[in-house]
């Protein structure tokens, strides 16, 4: 992705100059690309104006919440205009010193003709006179470079250097296309990406390099299919923070108050023998013995037995996740399983019921019986109430996103925009997901009732639902760190099959295992963020960064299918965690307006009327979507102003109180950000 452009550009300097790092990845990725992609425009800078606008933003609108962070990246565009540069520095002079350096740094360190490289990245091939067929501004000719991490195209044809930067991990497939319109003897190549774009290139047939480039590209875009390692294992960047330490299951369970008298941390899976897709540690009822667990494991698909995901700090109502029971056509029973679920009911004194949410459509669940799967028979589980959330399967989601891509890239039919979006059903599925998660959260919060969530295997829709409802219920997960923990726990450690769903380094683009479930989840988070703009400590840039690195293979975080595989491949020691990068630059990813609504439950409105397409992500390649203001950057400055004022007030108060004895009135402690009005929730 182009982001790398900026990131790349910075990267050489990265290690020594920490400050400027920030933009490297995150910033660059989302936005810079736009500029580079199509814009011929001069880099504007107009930082000053933005700052003014910030204020505007201040007051004004929800828009600020939703604005794509791309704006920020505009700064990173390539520009050489010295004047502007000077200007910016000027304007920034009073700001915390970091910002100007960032901008300055970027520019200085990105010589136009050099390909910016990450530590550990090597250039594999370079081809000149390649034509990039830009769907927005027409064809440009320039130099194409392929490294083992990215594809980098630069054209100096126009006034402003034009850069296109696609990381190889994002490539879904490479296709040869016919480009007759661009001249005879020309070969075309379309690079279909997972992140909603498909850049096209053309080059002359005679050149031998042509073949070479396609080969190199294929080889490095799909390293696993070509017996090469993923780039994450070569990436040598060092960060001050160690992201691998973010999630410690024991600490996280302790935060929830576990173990307690009813629940215990079970170590029977320490060698992944009970269930190879579960983490080494999970929480089960105290009274259940390990051999019982082993016996009931065969009754749950893939041995994914019911384990605790979250426990309500007051009511002790729990969210429990598992896979479908292997009921089969003959309504097979399992005493241990029944007993187990009853134990879960008993662990919660507030309710004598257990609600089971089956994410699937009823008919589908019923069909699974023929394949030995199925759902809990309420006759055998007397205190259970079974609900179906009617969510379609991963193939439907994949198809929906594919249609969405057709709608948003490359061109948008504005007359039929809305009906086209409707036809993809993408928002409809987002709605289903949010509504389902809200039902779960409501059950736990209002009915104080424990819930069991499962789908078929308990690693796709189940992960979506449990993590979303936990996000609604627990304000900790709405912090920057907490969200990382949530992902590490519910998604990564509990075996969402990232490798299979994303297809890291794999050539087989039509693999039916692929599906954008995680994207869908992040979209839901974004929708919640839009509805509760102050409730999340992180910002949109953070979400986009996560999605970019879901594909990029730069970090080890999302690689492989299960904890067991990750341990085998020594991911923790051989790769860098995405959170290392994020947590080294937390201010870039934080929402300045975050108010910790502790213990408040957020119920998002799950109606299409109140959902919006996440334009900042799905349509970000379209240069016409250029955002109007870099709210992200601006807000920071408002915060800075506040800090400054706060300091002044303190000084003055000291001054005043020293000059005359002051009544107590002046000391009322100023409460920083947490004085806000509480959310109206049903808490």
């Amino acid at each position, binding site marked *: 992705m182009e982001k790398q452009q900026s990131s790349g550009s910075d990267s050489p300097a990265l290690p020594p100059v920490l400050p400027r790092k920030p933009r490297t990845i995150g910033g660059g990725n989302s936005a810079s690309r736009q500029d580079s992609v199509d814009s011929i425009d001069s880099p504007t800078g107009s930082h000053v104006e933005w700052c003014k606008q910030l204020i*505007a933003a201040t007051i004004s609108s929800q828009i600020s919440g939703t604005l794509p962070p791309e704006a920020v990246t505009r700064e990173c565009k390539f520009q050489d205009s010295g004047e502007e540069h000077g200007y910016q520095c000027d304007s920034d002079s009073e700001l915390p010193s970091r910002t100007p350096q960032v901008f300055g740094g970027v520019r200085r360190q990105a010589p136009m003709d050099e390909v910016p490289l990450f530590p550990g990245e090597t250039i594999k091939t370079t081809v000149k006179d390649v034509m990039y067929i830009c769907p927005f501004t027409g064809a440009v000719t320039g130099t194409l470079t392929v490294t083992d991490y990215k594809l980098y195209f630069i054209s100096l044809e126009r006034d402003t250097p034009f850069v296109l930067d696609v990381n190889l991990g994002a490539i879904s497939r490479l296709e040869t296309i016919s480009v007759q319109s661009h001249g005879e003897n020309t070969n075309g190549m379309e690079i279909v990406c997972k992140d909603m774009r498909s850049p096209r290139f053309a080059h002359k047939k005679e050149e031998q390099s042509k073949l070479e480039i396609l080969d190199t590209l294929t080889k490095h875009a799909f390293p696993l299919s070509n017996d090469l390692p993923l780039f994450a294992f070569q990436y040598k960047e060092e960060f001050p923070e160690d992201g691998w330490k973010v999630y410690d299951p024991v600490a996280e369970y302790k935060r929830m108050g576990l173990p307690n008298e009813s629940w215990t941390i079970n170590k029977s899976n320490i060698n992944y023998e009970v269930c190879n897709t579960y983490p080494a540690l999970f929480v089960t009822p105290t009274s259940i013995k390990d051999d019982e667990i082993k016996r009931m494991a065969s009754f749950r698909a893939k041995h994914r037995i019911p384990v605790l995901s979250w426990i309500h700090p007051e009511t002790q109502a729990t969210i429990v996740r598992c896979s479908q029971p292997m009921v089969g056509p003959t309504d097979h029973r399992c005493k241990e399983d029944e007993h187990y679920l009853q134990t879960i009911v008993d662990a919660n004194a507030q309710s004598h019921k257990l609600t089971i949410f089956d994410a699937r459509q009823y008919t589908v669940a019923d069909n699974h019986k023929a394949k030995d799967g199925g759902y809990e028979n309420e006759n055998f589980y007397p205190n259970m109430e079974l609900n179906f959330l009617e969510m379609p399967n991963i193939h439907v989601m994949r198809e929906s996103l594919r249609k969405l891509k057709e709608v948003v890239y490359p061109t948008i039919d504005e007359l039929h925009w809305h009906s086209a979006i409707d036809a993809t059903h993408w928002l409809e599925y987002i709605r289903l997901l949010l509504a389902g998660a809200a039902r779960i959260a409501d059950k736990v919060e209002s009915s104080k009732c424990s819930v069991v969530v499962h789908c078929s295997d308990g690693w796709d829709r189940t992960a979506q639902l449990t993590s979303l409802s936990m996000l609604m219920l627990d304000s900790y997960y709405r912090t920057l760190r907490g969200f990382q923990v949530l992902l590490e726990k519910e998604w990564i450690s509990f075996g969402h099959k990232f490798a299979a769903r994303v297809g890291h380094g794999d050539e087989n683009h039509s693999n039916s295992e692929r599906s954008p479930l995680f994207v869908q989840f992040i979209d839901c988070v974004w929708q919640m963020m839009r509805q*509760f703009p*102050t409730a999340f400590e992180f910002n949109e840039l953070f979400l986009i960064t996560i999605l970019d690195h879901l594909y990029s293979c730069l970090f080890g975080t999302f690689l492989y299918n299960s904890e067991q595989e990750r341990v085998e491949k020594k991911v923790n020691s051989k790769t860098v965690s995405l959170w290392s990068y994020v947590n080294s630059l937390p201010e870039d990813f934080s929402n300045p307006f975050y108010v910790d609504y502790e213990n408040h439950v957020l119920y998002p409105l799950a109606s*299409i009327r109140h959902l919006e397409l996440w334009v900042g992500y799905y349509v970000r390649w379209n240069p*016409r979507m250029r955002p109007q203001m870099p709210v992200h950057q601006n807000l920071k400055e408002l915060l800075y102003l506040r800090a400054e004022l706060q300091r002044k007030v303190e000084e003055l*108060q000291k001054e*005043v109180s020293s000059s005359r004895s002051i009544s107590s009135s002046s000391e009322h402690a100023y409460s920083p950000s947490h004085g806000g009005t509480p959310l109206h929730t049903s808490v």
Partner: protein
Amino acid sequence: MLTGSKTTFKVRQMVPDMKERMLSHSSVNARGRDVLGLCCLPGECVLQRAVLVRKKLSANEGGGWLSGTLFCTHFRVAFVPQNSRKPDENTDPVLLGDHDVALASIDKVVAVGPSRSKLVTPNCTLKFTPEELVLYCRDLRVLCFLFDRLTPDTQAVEITYTIAKTYQPLKPGTILSFQNAALGSIEMKQFLSNRRRDLDMNWFECSSDWEQELERTGATGWRVCSVNDRFEMSTSLPRFNVVPQRVLDTELKKTFAHFNEGRIPRWCWRHPCGSDLLRMASFQNNIYHEKDDIRNLELVLFGGQQLCVIVDLGEEVPSPADIQLAHTRLQTLCLGDISSSVSVPDDKWLSTLETTRWLDYTRCCLRKATEVACLLRGGHMTVVLQEPEDRDMNCVVCSLVQVMCDPHCRTVAGFQGLLQKEWITAGHKFLSRINYNRDSDKEEAPVFLLFLDCVWQLWVQYPARFQLTEDYLLTLHDSVHLPLFSSCLANCQRDRCRRSQHLPQSYTPVNGLRELPMGPSEEPVDPPFPPVWDWALQYSSQRRARFTQPVSQPVCAPPVLNGNLNTNVDRSWHNDGLPGSVFLLSRSSFSCPSNLLPWRSGNSGSYWKSHRRAPSSEGLSGLERLIRAYSLSETSDSTTTLHDPYEPLLPLLLGPCVRVWRGCYLRGALHAQAFSHPMSSCNQHPLEQLAREVQQLRDKLAQASDRPPENQSKRQELRRLESNLNQNANNGTFLFSSSSRTSQQQPLAGRGPAQSSILPRAQRTASDPPRAAQRNNGKHTFLFGHQESQSVPRYMPTPSAKFPKHKGNSH
């Protein structure tokens, strides 16, 4: 009061027992009076009351429920929250409280029972006790009141009936009685006649107003002419119009006949690059063109410029009928089918939205305006908007162009001036288009609402460039639905002037009127109608405070009056040297049809030969470049874009960029809830939180500077510190351009807002209390305070002992 059985109530005639049913009259008190907890307007009386009612709060208000008492008066349905503060006896009457809705805004009344809901009409019978009362309003609000189990059934039933019977379906008679209920009492009349006009805005009602505008925009070569002073030349034009200086009044008079309704080309605005924006109606074709006439017509069209581009708004843009249809569909979509309480299913929502075409029309208007805005950048030309009637789309496009190009029009005062100029005095047919009297169904079309939507689209894309806020637009949207304001109660300035001069003749009294209790005066005389801009009359100060951004915009230096204009304008296209080229802009392309100007077309004959020539292709391509620059600028904003305040705000018009004004149209989407929980959107804008903190800090600074009054030196120091702070603000965050501080031309606005709020505060403790009170209310605070010009209340609150206490509490 009950007749019939417990659950069935016969509808009674309203008029006979009106007197008896009135719970109370408010006393004859100019300030209005507190009646049963409701602060009534003078002459207003409470018809019915229900206690222990809960009002459902919209997402904007924070969601959830608010309990209190529900009232129905002749004028409004009022809701008083339980622990609301006692209204101050000394405050001016305010028509609508924060939770009130005027009866004339109500469109439908629906009672929801245990198992069913019913549309309540004046003559229907309820067979159940309502648990919930839903009021659907014309302005797309939906108010929902929930009766408690402890609410006496009779009250629930009676108030439902009362509202159903008294809410006025808009008809001539009911309108008048509604107007009287609001403004008809003697006290109100007196009060209204003493209202001062808002002097911050330009009313465009006298010639000096226009001169001021000419001066503001730096337009030269134009003058204000008063040939239409008595509306003799054109009945629908304003009394004063701006025409080229070179045309004499006598010559000008002859041109009126050449235009539909006599709406000659009139100057509207000058772009800082030197182009002028004009508007006119279509040409009268069947008229003989005298040689002298032609000269004058050309003069009028070209002003002093060499080039004239006529922008045809007759086609491409939606017709009023289209707009009406789209709006009706939109309304149905957003509110659902009220009677059957069926709404569009979620999965069809977007497609149905698309079929309303409302967003298409918004985009279309914005696109037209964008083209014109880009064209104006060329300089040295007149751009003339032409529409057959010059009273609908011309208003929309002309004012949109100015909102895009002129930062002044993005302030509240400037925006109101703009609407006075391009809509109200220019003769937009508000009365017919809004159709209050339900007597012009064929003409009804919410053209103005479409315009507001367009402005909102701009606002949402460039919120930082506006001083006004979404709240302001929303309030204006709602106020337009009230038949109370002179601004919207006439079709043209002539009607407006007439009514204010001959009040008694213009309306005939209605019979039923006398039965309405109106205080001591039984004379059915039209109340004086205030202009819609009298916001202090309509809404509480808290609500008004939300009309503007806490931080005001940097005021840009006014354009240079002469010389030095157009320094960087691409002049290549007007080098063709021939004066008087005229082009038509239609469907985004330029052409030069021979019959564009009727007097230049072959048949009229008297047009001198020398002027007849082939359209210069050079000129055409130059113009097209200007427009293309626009589409380019969509992808690349040049460096100037953000620095030059006059660079137009060009909206993105791509599919995802034109959005539904959820805050307006979906206010009533009660059914959208995930489930029955009160919804939990954040009511406060995230920034409000921060804004409040900054304000608190500033207060604290002010407080610190106030405390040791004897210690002058300390105070000085504080001041200095504060100005340092401003400095910081300037350099560090560019809150205010430095030019704004040095600009002496607008002393009030020109001051950096931070200064304007800090300095006066130190001096002015008396006006501080309202601020403190506001803070106590937790309503809305400002980052840096408003410009002082706005916070000067019309009535200074008498400082009372209460205030210091408040202040004390707040700290």
